[in-house]
């Protein structure tokens, strides 16, 4: 007792505080370096001009939103149904196998999804560099992620609820709907996290759907799209000093949105506990 433990405590404390400081500092630097640009007139409403050294990020915002909307349309229904199968319907052994498959898919690096998406959706299915390729690729990534996250919440619903409802004469379908309702907070959390991830991913859409510069918003599924993360990459790697402000502004925006999303999720978690 004594000296050794106190030294341990102080070492751990210093490390923790240092880590905390670095994290806060990093977030702060990114947000602050881009925040002033929000107040440039037209930052949110104009198109980029002059090699992105002037103008705004309007098309990137729309592109990201459209991509997210499409991913939402594809992956949430499929993911939800898959989760229901995992939790409610499949026999235990099958469900464990499927769940570990989903967990494995979760750990596959995003660039592998991008490469797969490129060769499968863009080339084999001839969808080209387009919104549909990118959203399908992202959906392939997002479905396992959603399932992994949501299945825990469905499983957490006590068995008694299901048994009780069935004893009262409900069909399997109705019982499942009840379970969904009971776990809806958790499912919603999973949904938000999944969309948040889709919003932030870069590598898969860089090679399947995003372009560096286009003059019109994507209006057909086969159009390519400009998104926030891919444009940040493009500006940092391809353009000069005069354009970096736009990348910083977008980065700042993305961090703020991320913080907002997680703040929301944390609130929901606290509500759920009470």
């Amino acid at each position: 007792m004594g000296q050794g433990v106190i030294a341990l405590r102080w070492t751990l404390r210093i490390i923790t505080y240092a880590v905390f400081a670095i994290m806060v500092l990093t977030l702060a630097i990114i947000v602050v370096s881009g925040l002033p640009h929000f107040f440039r007139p037209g930052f949110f409403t104009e198109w980029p001009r002059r090699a992105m050294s002037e103008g705004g990020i309007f098309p990137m915002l729309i592109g990201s939103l459209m991509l997210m909307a499409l991913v939402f349309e594809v992956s949430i229904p499929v993911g939800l149904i898959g989760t229901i199968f995992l939790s409610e319907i499949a026999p235990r052994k099958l469900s464990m196998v499927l769940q570990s498959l989903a967990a494995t898919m979760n750990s596959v690096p995003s660039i592998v999804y991008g490469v797969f998406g490129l060769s499968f959706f863009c080339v084999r299915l001839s969808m080209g560099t387009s919104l549909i390729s990118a959203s399908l690729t992202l959906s392939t990534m997002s479905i396992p992620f959603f399932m992994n996250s949501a299945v825990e919440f469905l499983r957490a619903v006590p068995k008694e609820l299901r048994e009780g409802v069935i004893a009262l004469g409900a069909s399997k379908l109705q019982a499942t709907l009840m379970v969904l309702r009971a776990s809806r907070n958790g499912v919603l959390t999973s949904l938000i996290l999944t969309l948040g991830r889709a919003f932030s991913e870069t590598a898969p859409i860089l090679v399947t759907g995003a372009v560096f510069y286009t003059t019109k918003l994507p209006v057909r599924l086969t159009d390519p799209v400009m998104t926030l993360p891919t444009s940040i990459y493009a500006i940092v790697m391809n353009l000069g000093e005069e354009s970096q402000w736009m990348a910083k502004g977008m980065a700042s925006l993305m961090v703020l949105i991320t913080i907002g999303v997680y703040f929301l999720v944390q609130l929901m978690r606290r509500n759920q506990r009470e």
Partner: protein
Amino acid sequence: MKKVFLLVLVFTALVVYGQTLVIKGSNTVYPIAQLWVEEFQKMYPNLTVTLEGAGSTTGIKALFNETTDIANSSRFLKPSEIEEMHKAGRYFVPILVAYDALSVIVHPSLPIDDISIETLKKIYTGEITEWNQVDPKLPKRTIVVYSRNTASGTFETWVEKVLHGAKLSPRVQMLESSQAEIESVAKNPYAIAYTGMGYVTDKVKALKVNGVEPSVQNVIKGTYPISRPLFVFIDLSRFNNSWPMEGIVSDYLRFIVSPKGQSIVRQAGFVPAYGTGE
């Protein structure tokens, strides 16, 4: 939730009756193309244009894959590409649009003004690694060598004209764009890189090669040893194997060689191929 669904449905249901012109290819030509597109867009407001500048090789591949209408290129077709083109029954034709000098750039503070092709080759193949080996008056510091990446026509030209086919030393750092090269050299006093002349600004210093300056006059005279033509390629097999007399591609091509289009070449810092009428 329903609102989002509806919004997306509206988006995806909107089919705008307009055409799309897809342009891909050279990063060197990119700044010219960007200005061309902006001007061209004003003439054809209903048109959608997408522009990418990842590298000449990507543009030519895209022409093969039929994923682009126009390929910008800072080099001519490779023999393997010509062979492939014949086998696939295509008919790529080049339209000369400008001339470029591959400028060798260093930091303005480095006390060197002239360099020979031999020395450049030695630096890029790794035979020479420190500045004092180039010139004993220079500091004994590692040369930080930058190059464009393998998708680039600029890179191919460099390999052909300076390296004579030799392999790049693994210590050479590959960058994704010409602008990235400018930025890297501007920040590092011991860096060296090469870019199209249109990218050179006061942030860097362009060296003379074999005593010749990379100026517009020297390119026109043909005395600068690393100059090259810049092209735009189209696939005639999509137009009945003859020159497209009408349509959006035809209009675009007519625009870029017109005096107005050529003055844009000059504006971007390159040498116009056809004169600007001024």
